[in-house]
């Protein structure tokens, strides 16, 4: 090689004194952005890629292993039986369909409840009150998940608040079961839907609504043709939370769901005796959530998250 390497540039900030160790290190780092980047990323990537993604990968590979039916020990023999069982075993199929239906029901309920509420906080309430109302929506998010489920256990228990409120009408509360689980999940994830819808409604330009009215549209028509299309991506963004949080939940169902089983409960009940089956069942919510995310990305929802 005849070409000479470029002389290392003198550190202009070094001054006449010989630079100290810290300064030399700083200078070395400053001149090598690649080194700087590797130092920044080394620890977090070791944590996330090796520890986390590694564990996940091993778990999902183990979905294709089997167990010794006497000792419940995992046997590392490749088999697609577990994954096939997801589609062929009636119980699994039923629970999977029920879980997706619950997640969709919670999402629809959240959207239906969130819309009038957000419409009030974003456009009807006096502007002076709006920041306070947003705090009022945010506050329950900080209250403990378990305490909120416990609150619904209190409400729905026999002789509880629900029974007391419905007694004058000759009715009783739903008790513990599937409706209670849907109700509680809706309560838990509702703020995740209200917030994006509120933001979207608040940012809706008033001029568009006026223009629609000037062109002769009644409020109902303006709502359908102007408001709804502009707010829909935010509903989709909120639905990512309500859907995926509901699909993975098993604690709520255990506390207020009575004998109801969702996919999370099946995973939980298989861990001790048949870890590969638990892993295969765990694949289901992951795959469904990824598919849901991909579908929502088409609506442009993810960029507004």
């Amino acid at each position: 090689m005849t070409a000479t390497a470029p002389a290392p540039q003198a550190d202009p900030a070094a001054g006449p004194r010989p630079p100290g160790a810290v300064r030399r290190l700083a200078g070395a780092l400053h001149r090598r952005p690649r080194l700087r980047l590797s130092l920044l990323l080394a620890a977090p990537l070791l944590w996330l890629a090796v520890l986390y993604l590694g564990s996940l990968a091993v778990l999902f590979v183990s979905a294709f292993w089997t167990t010794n039916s006497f000792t419940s020990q995992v046997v590392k023999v490749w088999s697609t039986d577990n994954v096939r069982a997801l589609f062929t075993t009636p119980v699994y199929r039923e629970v999977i369909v029920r879980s997706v239906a619950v997640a969709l029901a919670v999402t629809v309920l959240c959207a239906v409840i969130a819309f009038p509420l957000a419409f009030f906080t974003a456009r009807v309430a006096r502007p002076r009150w709006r920041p306070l109302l947003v705090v009022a929506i945010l506050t329950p998010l900080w209250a403990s998940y378990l305490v909120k489920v416990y609150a619904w256990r209190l409400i729905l228990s026999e002789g509880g608040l629900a029974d007391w409120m419905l007694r004058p009408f000759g009715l009783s509360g739903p008790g513990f079961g599937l409706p209670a689980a849907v109700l509680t999940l809706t309560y838990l994830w509702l703020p995740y839907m209200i917030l994006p819808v509120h933001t979207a409604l608040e940012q809706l330009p008033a001029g568009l609504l006026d223009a629609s009215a000037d062109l002769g549209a009644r409020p109902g028509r303006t709502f359908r043709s102007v408001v709804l299309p502009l707010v829909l991506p935010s509903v989709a963004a909120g639905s990512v939370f309500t859907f995926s949080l509901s699909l993975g939940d098993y604690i709520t169902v255990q506390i207020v769901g009575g004998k109801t089983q969702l996919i999370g409960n099946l995973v939980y009940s298989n861990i001790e005796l048949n870890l590969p089956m638990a892993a295969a069942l765990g694949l289901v919510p992951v795959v469904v959530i990824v598919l849901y995310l991909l579908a929502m990305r088409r609506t442009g929802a993810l960029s507004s998250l």
Partner: protein
Amino acid sequence: MQLSRGARIALRLAAAVGFAVIYVPLLLVLVNSLNPDRSASWPPPGLTGHWWAVAWHNSGARGALWTSVRAGLGATAIALVLGTLIAFAVARHRFFGRGTVSFVVVLPIALPGIVTGIALNSAFSTVLEPLGVGLGLFTVVVGHATFCIVVVFNNVVARLRRTSGSYEEAAMDLGAHTFRAFADVTFPLVRSALFAGGLLAFALSFDEIVVTTFTAGPGVETLPIWIFDNMTRPQQAPVVNVVAAVLVLLSVVPIYLAQRLSADTASGSRV
């Protein structure tokens, strides 16, 4: 949009009902902690502060609270370091796979807790147990930190994107070396984002139950685990009621702190 009088009234009514549904359960938890009876039947036969005194001396709840605080602080510390490192890499550098890094950070919180939980559980038991390290508080901290990284990352990266790198460059032009520029210029700029991220990370860890179930060793009981284990025991119901009420009251603290922060971090994206 000119809403009719009827529509306005209907919306007001709907919002009033909505906020009532949001807050009645939380108020019920507060009232129920004063319920002298062990059952949850409504209305309570009277009010008493007796169970608050009993709960104060309950060693199980106290121990669990202390475990939760230690786990939360440990996970928050790790998340602050790792989240900030990734945020600086993503915001200040261009490199192959940058989008993938931001995606991997979100994954632990996007996937169901039970999947993350059993994945970590089987990894810990296959890797750590041969080394003689069992599940314990340490593994809880590792599990919590994994899904707390994202909230620190989100807050810091948002701040870094809004503050251009020219402040640091100006500091360096004036003779500050890399570390000096970070300590005197960059760090003060991201400090409140770090605080908001740390607050969210702690709250997330303090509230977590699913990952904890699978990463906690025997004898390690965080507060959510304690509540879950005691929820269905009629004997413990009054103490659980008080602990639940305390947690509802405590949730005002982060709201207050978040409001004290500047408006841009107060909106506090939880995810």
